[in-house]
């Protein structure tokens, strides 16, 4: 069983990096958080990147195969989509989704982006 202290520390690091305005915080979250084998860590990291609501952070969870909305884990993908739908300002997210639908090389990523874009238009 996971130590409660460890869980809390990881959660605090991810939340701290979300609040950190430095662009390198996105790099840290992408490199360490989204590549973790633990679903809960990937989920927390994806949500933190969406809540940053920056071009680079949103690009990580929308355009990368196996991360964010394209994650193999349903719970991670759904949590990321839910976080995108909850955004107050969706302008940047919609722009990245449109670019992904038009220009991404992978068909699956394009389809996912199209679906999320349709959901965001309805919300």
């Amino acid at each position, binding site marked *: *069983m*996971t*130590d*409660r*202290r*460890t*869980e*809390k*520390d*990881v*959660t*605090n*690091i991810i*939340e*701290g*990096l979300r*609040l*950190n305005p*430095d662009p*390198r*915080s996105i790099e*840290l979250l992408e*490199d*360490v*958080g989204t590549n*973790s*084998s*633990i679903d809960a*860590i990937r989920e927390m990291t994806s949500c933190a990147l969406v809540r940053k609501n920056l071009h680079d952070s949103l690009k990580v969870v929308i355009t990368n195969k196996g991360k964010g909305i394209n994650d193999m884990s349903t719970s991670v993908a759904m949590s990321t989509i839910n976080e995108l739908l909850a955004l107050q300002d969706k302008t940047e997210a919609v722009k990245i989704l449109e670019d992904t639908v038009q220009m991404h090389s992978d068909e699956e990523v394009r389809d996912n982006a199209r679906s999320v874009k349709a959901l965001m238009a309805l919300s």
Partner: protein
Amino acid sequence: MTDLSIPAIRERLFNTSKHEQTTSRNSSNPFAKTSFKGNVLTADVFESSKNKVSEPSFTGKLGAIPAKSKLYMSTIVGSINNFGNRISQKFHAGIESINNFCNRVSDSVSGMWNTLKTTEVKLDFVDNFKDALTPGIRKSHIAKIDLSNDELYKSTRELFSGKVAEWTNSAA
């Protein structure tokens, strides 16, 4: 001369068949002799002239009660019977409801006991208090780190990687 004493009058009134022929009537009715016209009918006309008081009666004193009163008494007895039946039914219903209540209480207690056995009791406030006292990583501290500084960036990355690895190892 006509005897007007009470026993004589009673004799004439109650033994009509004996005195019918001597009774003078001014009636043209051909059935006069077989009718009761001219005679006083009482409730005891069709009863035997034998004295019943001397006969043994299981009702005892009740035997002397008039027929009308007997009707009342029978009604009262019937009511008592009904009342008794109702009391009995209520009593049985009460016993059954007590049984049901006891069974329900028993079920609830055993259910509660089973729930308690399968429930993990956690005192979250104790854990939170412990966490607040023990030094740990604070998000406010991470949020203020200057990541443009390579040294700080490296240490933060190591800290994050180490904690994720710790979680991964404990989950495996």
